[in-house]
C-alpha cells in the first residue's frame, strides 16, 4: 500500500468533538499527541467505524459501534451531547465516504453522497473481497477487556498463526526487548504461553499472563496484526506499560509493514524514538491536537524535521499543543 489508506477525515458531533476546524489530513504513519481529553481516542474510534459502524468484528465478537460503545457508557455516548447525529467524512482512495450515527445507535453510510451497498462499494474501491472488509482496520484501545477478547480470538486461530510462523517471529521480536530468550509463542493447556529453553535444553513454558503487562500486550497485539494484516492499525496509548526498548522495537516493526498506522501517545519516549525510525519524511507526521473551549478540534502537523528541531531546542512537543489555536 503506497501512502495513506484513509487520507483525510472530518468529524462532526462525535464523542467530545463538536467539529473539526478543518479536515484532518493523514499520512501513512501518524502519531497523535495532545492533552487528556483532546480528542485523540475519539479520532481513532471515528477511523475504526469506517466503513460501516455496524460491521461485525470477528476479533472482538461484536459490532464495531457496540465495541466503541462498550469502551464508554453506551452507543448514545458516541454522539456529542447524547442527542442528534454524529457525522464522519472520510477520504479513501479519493472517494468521499460519509457515516452518520444517531444517538439511538442506528447509522447510515454513503459514498459520493449516494446511499449504496457499502460492503460492495468499498470492496470495489479497495479492490478487496467483501469478506475481507471487516479486516480493514484493527483498533487497539488501552483496556484489558478488549485485550482479553483479542487473546481469546488469537487462540481460536492458533493453527493459522502457527502455520504462518507468526508465533516464532513474535517470539524473536520479544527477545529484542527482554533479557530472556524465547523460542516461540504457543498454546498450552494453560493458554497462551512462551517457550524458552533451559541451559540443559529442556523446555520451560511461561504463561503469557505471568509475563509483564507490556510484553503480554505486545505479544497479543503483534500476533493479531500478523494474522490479519489490516489496512489500518489504530492504537491508543501506544506506550502503555512499555519500556523504551519495547517502544522502539514496536515502532520499527509497525513502520516496516504495509499498512497505515495511527497511534496516540503521551510519551516523550515515543517521540524521541521516532527520530531514529526509518520512515520516509513524507510518510510520517506528528499531529498535535487540541480542543478549544467550544469543543472544536484544532490540529497542527509536525514533520520529523520539525520534531527534531523542537527536541534540539529542548522544547517538549507535547507541551507545545498549549499554543494551538490560542
Amino acid at each position, binding site marked *: 500500500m503506497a501512502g495513506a489508506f484513509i487520507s483525510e477525515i472530518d468529524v462532526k458531533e462525535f464523542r467530545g468533538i463538536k467539529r473539526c476546524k478543518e479536515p484532518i489530513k493523514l499520512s501513512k504513519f501518524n502519531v497523535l499527541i495532545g492533552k487528556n481529553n483532546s480528542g485523540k481516542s475519539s479520532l481513532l474510534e471515528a477511523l475504526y467505524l469506517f466503513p460501516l459502524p455496524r460491521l461485525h468484528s470477528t476479533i472482538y465478537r461484536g459490532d464495531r459501534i457496540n465495541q466503541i460503545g462498550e469502551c464508554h457508557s453506551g452507543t448514545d455516548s458516541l454522539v456529542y451531547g447524547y442527542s442528534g447525529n454524529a457525522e464522519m467524512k472520510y477520504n479513501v482512495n479519493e472517494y468521499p465516504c460519509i457515516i452518520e450515527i444517531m444517538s439511538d445507535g442506528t447509522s447510515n453510510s454513503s459514498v459520493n453522497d449516494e446511499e449504496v451497498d457499502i460492503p460492495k462499494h468499498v470492496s470495489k474501491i479497495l479492490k478487496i473481497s467483501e469478506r475481507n472488509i471487516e479486516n480493514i482496520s484493527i483498533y487497539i484501545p488501552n483496556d484489558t477487556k478488549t485485550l482479553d477478547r483479542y487473546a481469546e480470538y488469537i487462540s481460536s486461530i492458533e493453527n493459522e498463526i502457527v502455520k504462518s510462523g507468526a508465533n516464532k517471529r513474535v517470539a524473536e521480536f520479544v527477545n529484542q526487548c527482554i533479557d530472556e530468550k524465547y523460542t516461540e509463542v504457543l498454546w498450552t493447556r494453560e493458554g497462551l504461553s512462551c517457550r524458552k529453553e533451559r541451559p540443559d535444553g529442556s523446555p520451560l513454558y511461561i504463561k503469557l499472563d505471568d509475563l509483564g503487562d507490556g510484553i503480554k500486550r505486545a505479544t497479543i497485539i503483534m500476533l493479531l496484526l500478523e494474522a490479519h494484516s489490516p489496512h489500518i492499525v489504530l492504537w491508543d496509548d501506544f506506550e502503555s506499560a512499555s519500556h523504551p526498548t519495547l517502544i522502539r522495537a514496536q515502532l520499527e516493526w509497525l513502520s516496516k509493514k504495509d499498512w497505515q498506522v495511527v497511534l496516540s501517545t503521551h510519551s516523550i519516549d515515543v517521540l524521541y524514538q521516532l527520530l531514529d525510525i526509518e520512515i520516509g519524511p513524507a510518510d510520517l507526521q506528528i499531529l498535535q491536537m487540541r480542543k478549544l473551549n467550544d469543543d472544536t478540534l484544532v490540529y497542527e502537523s509536525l514533520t520529523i524535521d520539525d520534531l527534531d528541531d523542537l527536541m534540539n531546542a529542548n522544547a517538549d512537543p507535547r507541551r*507545545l499543543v498549549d499554543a494551538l489555536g490560542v
Partner: protein
Amino acid sequence: MRVSENVGESAEPWSFVGTGDGTDEFHILRAVAEKYNGTCSLWFPKSPLGKKTGLTVLDSINTVININPKISTFLFLIDREHIVQGMNRRSGDKLDNSDIKGMIEDRLSNKHIKIIKIDDNTPEGAFIIKGKLGSRVLQIYVIIQGIDLKIEEEISKLIKLEKDITIPPEKEHIRDFFKETFHRKSIGQGTAKLIAGTSKNNLRMSFPGLTFILNVIENHCSKNN
C-alpha cells in the same frame, strides 16, 4: 517576569524560550526573571530529555511559528562550549561576539529568516536580532552562556560574590556545594535558591548576558503595554 512551562490563554504576550543545554536553565531563568517586572511572560516548554545542542536551537523558530503564528519573540540560551564543539578550533581560542554573530546569521538564513538588524551595543554573549520570516517580524534574543565555556562559570562567580567561596566551575564541585548548602544536588534548583537571595547587582555581574537581555525584554514589554 514570569517563566512558565505552559502557555496561558490570557492576552499577555508570550515569548518562546529554547535552550541548547538541558534542563538546569529552566530553574535558573525562572529565578533570575523573578527579579524583573514586566507584563511579558516567557514560555519555556522544557523537555525532560535534556539534549546538548548548540545553535541548532534556532531551527525551532519556524516550527513554533507554524504552531502559533502569534509568537514572534524568541529567547535562546546556549552554552558557549556547545558552539565551540565541532568547530575546528584550538583549545583556548575563545569565540568572540563577531564569530558567533556570523554563525547566528548563517543559521537563521538557512531557515529563511532575513536579518533586519543585529544590535551591536550588547555585552559579550548577548545578541538582539530583528528578523523577518515572510511578512512576520521576529525579535530574537540569543544568550551565549559561560565566560569561556559554560554556565557553571557564571554560577561559580555568583557563589564567590554571594558566599565568598571559590568553587571550581565544574558540575561535580557545584553540585557538592549545593548539596552542602541547600541539601540539593541539582545545579538548576541550587542556583535558583542562591539567586532568590541575591541582589540584582551581583546577578548582573555573574550573568551579564542573561540580565542584559531580560532588562531589554522588560523595557520592551512596558513600552508595548
